[in-house]
Each structure stands twice: as C-alpha cells, then as structure tokens.
C-alpha cells in the first residue's frame, strides 16, 4: 500500500543554471528550457509513451516522444517512475473572485441587477488568493473564473446575465499575466419556475402559486429575449453606422454573443429548464454550453442533436430527487458520453476545486472509460471553451501546462511532484502545507 512515507526519490539534475528565487513567492521562475525525461507520458493525443521525454521551450511544448533530444543547457528532470499529464482544467470556479465565501468583503462573484454582460471576471481575479496554490497542489493548472456562479454556500447562479467568464492560468504575478482568454464565455442563469423562496426576515419558506411563479418565469425569459434582440439590433446598427451610435456598454458586451463568437455558459439543472434553455439558444442562434446539468441524462438526445456540451456539476453531490438512484450523478457521465454528448467536470467552487480528479474517478467507478475521465478534466473542458488549440493535451506547440505525478492524477493518494504552467516550474507549496510544517514542528506543549 502506498503511503507518502515511501516516496520515490527523484533526482533533479541542473544541467543549466536554474534560478529558484522566485519560487519562494509562489510564482514562476524565469524561463529556461526544461526536459522531463524517462517518464510515462500521457499525452492524451495518442497512446501513452512508456519511456518518454517532454521538452519545454519558451513556455510551449517543443517536443514529446521517445528518443527526443535534449537541448543544450536545459534543466533536466529525471522522472523515472513518474508520469506526465496535461495539467487539470477546472472549467467552473470562482477562483480569485472569492476568498472566504461567508465574508462579503472577500467575495466578488456576483453583482446586483440581472443584466451584467459587461462585467469581466479577470478584472477582479486576485492573483495572491490562497486558493490558487492550493488548487495547484491538486494538479490544476488552469481554470475558468466564472462570475455569478454560486459556490460553496449556494450552487445557483443568480444574475440572468452574470458577466464574462475568464480562462486563467493558476500562476502569474498579476491577473493579466494569468490570462488565457479574458472573454471566454457569457454567463447566463436560466430562470426557474420558483414556487418556494426563503424569507430571511422570518427564516421560513414562502410559497407562491404555480401560475404566479410561471408568470415570473415567462417574464424573465421575455426579458432575456429582449436583451438578446436589443443586442443584435445594436450590433447591426453600430456595424452599419461605422460605430457611431449611442453607445451602451452592456449591449456592446453582448455583440460577440449574438454573433455566435462567444459561447453562452447557461446554468440549468432540471430537464425542463435545460430543454427550454436549449430551445431558446437555438432560436436566438447562441452558442450554448450547459453548466450544471443534474438532469442532463433526461435530455441527452436533445443535447447531442443540438451539439450542446455540458460542464457537469460534481458527481459527489447529493442526488437531486428523492426517487433518483443513489448513484445518479456518478453514472450520468458515462451515460451522456455513450449518447454522444460532450462533457467536462467542474468543481463549481474554489475550495473543492482540488476534488476535480476525485469527481472524475467516481464517474469511472460507475462506468465511464478512464481515458474519457482523464480527458474530461483536461482536453474536454479546453475543447468546450475553444481552447484546445493551446491546451488540453501534450502536443508540440501547445502551452506547457503539465504535471508530473507519482501516479494516477484522479486517485486520492497521488502526489503532484512537479507542476509547470506556461512552461515554468511552479511550486505546489501553499498556505496549508506551510501550516502543516509549522505545527508539525511545534514543541510538545507545556503541561
């Protein structure tokens, strides 16, 4: 049985000069060529390479394979006995936007109002968030920071249009340095027919007749349609008038959406809501990505036929309905894949981002192919967000976001030994490990 007391020693050979000063600050070290040798490499673009080398140059993967030559002056990591994978990609988080979910002052996820397309997550990503290095320790190298996407205490999104999600690397001195794609997706919270609400002034649930709730729902959908139509009109007029028009920052932010250039990340869980959202996006010609999808299995054929990919909420959540099978959320990924639906796993959180691999492993235990599970936390999120040209596999020319582990990155006991972001060796030390070291060495308490 593996315990961390039996770690394999991994020699790090310094063929070139390596400056590690920057690492102490949890940031990347200056660029240098790196070669990871003698590793089992899971490129996810073909069969694993048993004894392979990855060469990193200028932040990119310069070569992958057996018998790849090592550039002169490269730093060499002998990874014999270790395995190399693309870094994990968590496609729904509030990373950098929320530090302590119970403390409003530290939370910048959700604006007031319901139409906020001009908000951009990258604006409020805190590069020094303690969550970032903690997530790195779990092998996560990039995430989508998603505004208005809930989190630990409320898994619901809240704005109708919540703002723009930004894809970020989990390393960088500043938010701009972390950016992969600033305007990666527009967040839409599909309205629900809510007959119950929670009234904080009396701390009790309040009920509303169905017909009233339905009216509110229809109103919200109309509102969404009106905004989309206004945005489309605005796009046409600004184009025709050569940009001279009464400018409106909100409508302007919607232009890439109505042109189908920016996907819409639609939060919906119930089958009916998903159906309605798909129909709406079809009608409005929007490029839809479904987020949540607790009941996606009920509408899998629709999702396949309309090519709507799904970022699934955690498989380890509690099944939604009382009469759902206990393993409903764990069997769903395999079922969706078999139906031809593209899926990825998301944590929908910050502090549980490190459970991404665990979420995927539990789907494997319930019928998902292992290869798909690995891809559902690497390549598939990249594909869904249109970032697979740069990320998601270990192929020449892609950004060198990769991890070197002592085992299966989806397994609970696996350690990430080395982590590279944009080709830079980036530490996995973090606040939690520091506290561990500190209190591990606390002298025995005086009696």
């Amino acid at each position, binding site marked *: 049985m593996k315990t961390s007391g039996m770690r394999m020693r991994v020699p790090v050979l310094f063929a070139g000069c390596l400056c590690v000063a920057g690492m102490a600050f949890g940031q990347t070290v200056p660029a240098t060529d790196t070669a990871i040798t003698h590793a089992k490499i899971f490129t996810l673009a073909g069969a694993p390479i048993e004894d392979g080398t990855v060469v990193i140059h200028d932040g990119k993967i310069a070569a992958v394979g057996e018998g790849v030559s090592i550039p002169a002056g490269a730093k060499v990591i002998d990874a014999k006995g270790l395995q190399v994978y693309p870094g994990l990609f968590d496609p729904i988080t509030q990373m950098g936007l929320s530090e*302590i979910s*119970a403390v409003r002052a530290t939370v910048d996820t959700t604006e007031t109002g319901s139409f906020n397309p001009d908000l951009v997550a990258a604006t409020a990503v805190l590069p020094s968030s303690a969550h970032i290095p903690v997530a790195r320790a779990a092998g996560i190298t990039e995430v989508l920071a998603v505004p208005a996407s809930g989190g*630990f205490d409320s898994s619901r999104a809240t704005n109708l249009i919540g703002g723009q999600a930004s894809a970020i690397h989990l390393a960088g001195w500043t938010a701009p340095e972390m950016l992969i794609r600033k305007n990666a997706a527009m967040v839409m919270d599909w309205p629900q027919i809510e007959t119950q609400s929670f009234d904080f002034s009396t*701390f009790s649930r309040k009920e509303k007749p169905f017909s009233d709730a339905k009216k509110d729902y229809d109103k919200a959908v109309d509102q969404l349609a009106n905004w989309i139509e206004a945005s489309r009109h605005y796009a046409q007029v600004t184009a025709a008038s050569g940009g001279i028009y009464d400018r409106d920052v909100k409508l302007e932010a919607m232009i890439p959406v109505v042109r189908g250039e920016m996907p819409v990340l639609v939060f919906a869980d119930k089958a009916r809501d998903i159906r309605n959202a798909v129909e709406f996006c079809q009608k409005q010609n929007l490029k839809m990505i479904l987020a949540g999808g607790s009941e996606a299995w009920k509408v899998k054929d629709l999702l396949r036929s309309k090519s709507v990919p799904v970022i699934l909420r955690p498989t380890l959540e509690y099944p939604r309905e009382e009469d759902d099978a206990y393993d409903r959320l764990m069997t769903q990924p395999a079922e969706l894949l078999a139906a031809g639906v593209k899926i990825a796993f998301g944590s929908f959180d910050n502090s549980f981002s490190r459970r991404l691999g*665990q979420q995927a492993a539990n789907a494997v235990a*319930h019928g998902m192919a292992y290869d798909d599970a690995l891809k559902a936390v690497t390549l598939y999120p990249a594909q869904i967000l249109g970032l697979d040209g740069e990320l998601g596999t270990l192929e020449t020319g892609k950004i060198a976001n990769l991890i070197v582990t002592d085992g299966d990155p989806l397994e*609970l006991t696996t350690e990430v030994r080395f982590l590279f972001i944009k080709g830079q060796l980036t530490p996995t030390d973090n606040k*939690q490990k520091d506290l561990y070291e500190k209190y591990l060495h606390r002298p025995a308490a005086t009696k």
Partner: protein
Amino acid sequence: MNRRRVSLGVTVIALLGLLAGASGVAREKEAKAGAAANPAPVLLIRHATILTVTHGTLENGDILVKDGKIVAVGSGLKAPADAQVIDASGQFVMPGIIDCHSHIAIDGDVNEGSVSVSSMVNIADVLNSDDPAIYRDLAGGVTAANILHGSANPIGGQTIVIKLRWGQPAAKLPFEGALPGIKFALGENPKHSNFGGFGLPERYPATRMGVEETIRGAFTEARDYKKSWDDYNKRVAAGEKNLIPPRRDLKLDPLVEVLEGKRYVHAHCYREDEILMLLRVAKEFGFRVQTLQHVLEGYKVADEIAAAGTGASTFSDWWAYKVEAYEAIPYNAALMTRRGVVVSVNSDDAAEAMHLNQEAAKSMRYGGLTHDEALKLVTLNPAIQLGVEKRVGSIEVGKDADLVIYNRDPLSAYAVVQKTLIDGRVYFDREKDLAGRAALEQEKKELLAKARKIAEKKADEKKAEGKKPEEKKPEEKAKPPQDRIDEGGAR
C-alpha cells in the same frame, strides 16, 4: 434537507410525488420488515481481503456471522449447514463506516436556534426513518451515525447514535446501549456572525467571550440544580418524610447528566482559542468533552486535546467557507493522530457521507497516515468517540456484524460498495438495487398515469359543476439560497 411536504389538496404533480414516494418506501419497508421479523441469518463471507483494522489485513479470508455477531474470522472456514454464503472473491471487507457527525434521519430542521441554551430539545424525538439519506449513506458503507442537533447555540440539543437500519421504524434506529450526547457549539455559528442582517432577532452571545460565559452560566446553574437534587435524594434516603422535591428543569437535566458522565458532549468548534476555552471550562466543572467536532484548528493545539482525553472529529479537506475555516488544512487528521488524539473524519452532510472511505484515504496523502490509520478514521476511532468500540469499529470475533463489502480497496476513489450489513443483515445490496430499478421506474410511470387520471377527472367534475378548476398548487420545491445556514450553520 428539504423534506417533501405535500398537502392532499391535490394537484397533479403533488399527488404524483406523494404516490411515488410512498410506494417506493413502502416497497422497501415490506422487504426489510419481513427480513427483520426473522432472526438474522447465519452468514459466511468467503474469499475476501479482510481489512480488520485492529488485526491487519487477511487475504483470502472468511467471516462467519451468527445472530448478528461476528463469530469467526479466518481462512477456510467451514460453512454451517444453514449458512448463506457470500462469495467475496476479489472483494474487500471492512468494518461498517461510522459517521461521527450527521444530520440525516431528522424530521424538519436541526436547529432550535431561538435560545442560547437549547438542551431541552432532543433529536431522538424527531428521528425520521423514511429519510432517503439513510439508504444513500448505507450505499456509501455507513452503518452507524451520530445524529446531531445544529450549531446555533453554545449549548444545543440532545443527540443520539443510530444504526442505519433502513426500512425499520424510527424506534429501531437507535444504537442500543450507546450513550446519548449533547451538541455544543463555539465560534461563528453560535455568535450568529455569518447570518445576521436578515431581520433575525439579536441574541446573546455575540462574541466568543459570551459563548464561554453562556456555557459557564448554564453549568453553574446545573451544578446547583444537581446539588439540590442530591441533597433531596440524600434526605429521602435517610428516611425524611414529606419533603418537597426540587422543581424539575428540563434544560438542566441533560447538563446534570453531562456532569455525571452519563451524556457525551460533542462540541462544534473551529479555532484554537475556543478549543482551549472549552477544555478549561470542562475542567472547571469536572466533565470531559467527549469529542470536538470539525475542530479544524485542532492541529494547532493537538497536545492539549490529547491531554484532555478528548476526541477530534474533523473534515477531510474542507476550508475557507468562513473565517474560522481559513486556516483549515487537510493535514489536520494526520497531525492530531501523530500527537495522540483519537481522530475521526465525519461528513456533516448526507452526500459527503456517501464517500467517507475516500475522505479517510486523503490522510494518507496529507500527512502520511498508514492504510490502517486511515481506515480507523472512519471505523474504530469514531466508535471509540461514541463509546461503542466494544460493539463496532473493527472486524473481530464478538463484535456486531456491521460490515461493508467493496469491489476493491476502499481507500480508493474507484471503490464501489457492493453490500452493507448491519447486525449480520444485508441492508444494502448493489446488485439488488440495480436489478430493481426497472420495476421502480415502471411503478412510477403507472402512478403518474393514475395521478393524471385522478386530476383530470377532478377537473372535469369541477367543470361539470360550472366552477373554475382549482388553482394549481406549487410544483417546485426551491432550495433556500442559504440552505446551509438553515441546516444549522451545520458547518
């Protein structure tokens, strides 16, 4: 958890929910009640990898179960003539998982939050044997759980340990002989710091200082109360007649039981300062804190916790959801274990309880616990913390046959529970669960059709009477946005 409450006012959907829910439960109950009426079968589990927890791992081992107890553990055991045999070739058997912090099987809310000391209320009075979470947690290998009141008060309600005997009535859930407990809570939740401002009335305490004084005040009263009873009983015993007994105080009775060591204190806490505070107060009044719950900064004062003989029941890797959880570390369980604290990993959540085996495994990665030490976090250690270690927590002759069979090493994210046994009876069987799904689906369809018909008929009747059909009743049950708070600021 939101219980589905349906009035018989009757809408299509509401009626459906009622019928479907009732029938599923009824079916389960029928099956289980039948089994329960009979004596537990003689069972032989064969050819398994047996994780005994206390006596190492036995490859290709057998476990013989009789009258709900483990009667033999070894290799090549002979099956008695009347034995049912479970072939567990290639599978792993471990002791049933014990969840030291759970809020399942409770009817309604878990908090009586209106007062600072709510020791008069008792979770045992509101056990709900129909909560599907019982079945789902069984499917995650949980066989026993400490069912706690919420954390809204420095001294909360009385608690009870149950076995997850799904299908049995509520009266059969309590773990026989297990000492009852009482929930205490320190820090942000009892001082209501995270959910003020919603028109909630202000309530003492609002600081950690106030939390301490609330507890000291209550125990000062309890001590006097106990003395007045002791005096009274002494005088009665001495033969004095016509004495007026002290007035019963339902709030103080359970605190007297704490002082007498007849009721365990399970204290929700986070920060190092409040942990030490409670240990001091307990010392002052001469009782022991049985467990610190969550205790996310326990690693900072592990020596002090160990010296007090107090157990620690924590989360695997939760953090940052509030200020007092910001210095939580996943190494907590391992660090406290290394300093001699009896540590368990708990769920606090019906979904988390479905994979506590996985949560225990994380302590091998974070802090380097051994395989057996990690297993103990969800078996023997919580058994010790609940005072039931003579009955459960390891696979040993004489112990209750509360067992889980996995398809592989349970300390893996790929392990799936195949069977869960309590008292030698199979309460969860994955094969049966899978095989029964088609029939359940069919039943649900039929019920839907039936309910639709009833609703249509009613609508027609109303129309015939020339009345407007009744307004449709609510269909959805929305989660309150801050359900966690409602649950008791459970965390």
